[in-house]
């Protein structure tokens, strides 16, 4: 320690790296302290917006939520001037669109992950892996424009909840693929080999051995994927019109969703409308956070059993 205590001698540390040779120990210790403070401060700065946003949404939006009518009624016939009505139309819209998305995206996502892990030898798997990366960085507005150009302009369908689901499929697939892939990779190879050694065909090994072992990871992926797509607004703006009434038909007519409900009234200045906007925001945050936290908890408490 003596070489470091003086700090002026050329010790191995100074020669090995460019560590402030001219500074005394006090200077280095001070730098170290400053760095620690800055790093901890950075974490505090990162947490502030999270707390701030959640408190804001709670404070401005909590008033309407305890009321049963918020969960059971739509906005049919309600103008910004009138208080009342609920978000049922938007909640049901968000859930239906998310379910339709999941029905399409989950099988594709799981099979693509199986391709990446169980059939990873070919060139196809490498290209798919790269494509999934690209897909996970695809802006939602581009996904929406693609579905607009494909589904609406080229195939001639009209704007609908289902068109939104199609765009959301693009955003959900990468989440499901990556989460499933991670989990499949964790399944010990011994399990597969034991199964093959018993003469079990590959597909049955995957269905009966690999997938059940990785089941919790797949559920996590699906929940995180749902959380991601439920909060998306851009596809809704382009692919469906907002309706104040309840519409449970994904294939025709305007259809509400929570982000669309918020967007529709966000520029209103009248108190009842403003209150509903924040209440809808709180509802959406709750929905997304619950899915997100559930997904993470499942991932944590049921990792692959060895």
């Amino acid at each position, binding site marked *: 320690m003596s070489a470091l205590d003086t700090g002026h001698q050329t010790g*191995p*540390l100074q020669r090995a*790296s460019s560590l402030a040779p001219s500074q005394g120990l006090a200077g280095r210790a001070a730098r*170290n302290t400053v*760095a*620690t403070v800055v790093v*901890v401060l950075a*974490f505090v*700065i*990162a*947490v502030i917006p*999270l707390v*701030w*946003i959640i408190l804001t*949404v709670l404070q401005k939006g909590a008033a309407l939520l305890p009321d049963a009518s918020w969960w059971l009624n739509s906005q049919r016939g309600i103008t910004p001037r009138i208080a009342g009505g609920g978000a049922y139309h938007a909640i049901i819209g968000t859930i239906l669109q998310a379910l339709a998305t999941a029905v399409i995206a989950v099988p*594709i996502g799981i*099979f*693509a992950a199986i*391709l*990446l892990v169980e059939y990873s030898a070919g060139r*196809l798997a490498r290209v*798919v892996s*790269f*494509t*999934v*990366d690209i897909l*996970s*960085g*695809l*802006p*939602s*507005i*581009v996904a929406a424009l*693609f579905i*607009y*150009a*494909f589904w609406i302009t*080229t195939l001639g369908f009209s704007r609908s909840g289902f068109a939104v689901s199609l765009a959301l499929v693009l955003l959900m697939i990468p989440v499901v693929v990556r989460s499933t892939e991670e989990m499949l990779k964790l399944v010990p190879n011994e399990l597969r080999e034991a199964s*093959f050694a*018993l*003469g*079990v*065909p*590959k*597909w*049955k*090994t*995957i*269905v009966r051995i690999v997938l059940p072992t990785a089941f919790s990871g797949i559920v996590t992926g699906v929940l995180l994927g749902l959380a991601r797509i*439920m*909060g998306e607004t851009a596809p809704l*703006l*382009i692919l469906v019109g907002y309706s104040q009434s309840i519409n449970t038909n994904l294939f025709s007519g305007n259809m509400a969703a929570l*982000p669309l409900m*918020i967007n529709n009234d966000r520029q209103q200045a009248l108190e009842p409308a403003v209150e509903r906007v924040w209440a809808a*925001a709180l509802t*959406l*945050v709750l929905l*997304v956070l619950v899915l997100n936290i559930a997904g*993470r908890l499942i991932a944590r408490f049921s990792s692959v059993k060895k």
Partner: protein
Amino acid sequence: MSSITGRSTVDQVPGPTGDVPRGRRRLGDTLFGGAANLSGVVVIAIVALTGVFLATRAVPSLLDDKVNFLTSTEWVPEPGNLRFGILQILWTTVSISVMAMIIAVPLGVLNALFLTQYAPRWLARPAASVIDLLAAIPSIVYGLWGIQVFAPHLTGLQKAVNDGLGWFPLFEGPISAGTIFIAGIVLAIMVLPIITALSREVFAQTPAANKEGALALGATKWEMIRTAVLPFGRAGVVSASMLGLGRALGETIAITIIVSSVAPGTDFFASWLQGGETFASKIANNAAEFNDPSSTGAYIAAGLVLFVLTFVVNAIARVIVNRRKAFA
């Protein structure tokens, strides 16, 4: 008790990878492998078709464009007299993204350092989850919070910057209600979890020998980080930043809500204290008017540029990550 192997003819015993020789593959294997391949092809097709369909819809309008698409600042895509160029949009998009990266990259790296090097074990995991939760908040909520709650707190700061540095084009007035500056900060918060998560991953992989070596030589914790952790994680931080940039370029509704749009026909301006429209918010603001194919084509052309931009940024990020993986 029935065997799960079904028929167990000796010559169908699979090899070490579970594959049976060609020509004798079971129906189940053929179907299952086929389904896996099909899903892969679907994923590739989706990305390829996105490019193809956007291009097909954009090209006719681009050919009819009366002004230069790349260098014009006009955006008046009237059917029959299409005049649209992306210069102003590109500037706004890049400005907001750069602003976001200036804040988010250092903050993300510091947070990743906190989570991997400083936080005690019991805190590291919940703290990481808290940062991840920032990514879970829907962007429309960021938008609402950004313009209604956060923006008023920046009025003074923006005014001060404008008073002091108003002569510089970036800080010219008049200050809009929703500025690029505000949107950049909110966007920084939104991309922070991506940058933090990926940087955290690479920092956590720093070989213990490197860290212990630095400490054994008498380095302080910060010197250890500077000489062992940061150099090891450099490539990872670069690609994390690229992924964050990709997300920032494409963010739609938060920016649509926060940044005030400018009247069409305004001359080019560079100021970060004014409004503007990014590719995504331009499209979102006009989504209700997608009726005429030729004017819609103008917006699809903007979408195509955004697609290409994010594709390139993401591809670069992935190449860096994968190259690192190959050497690790």
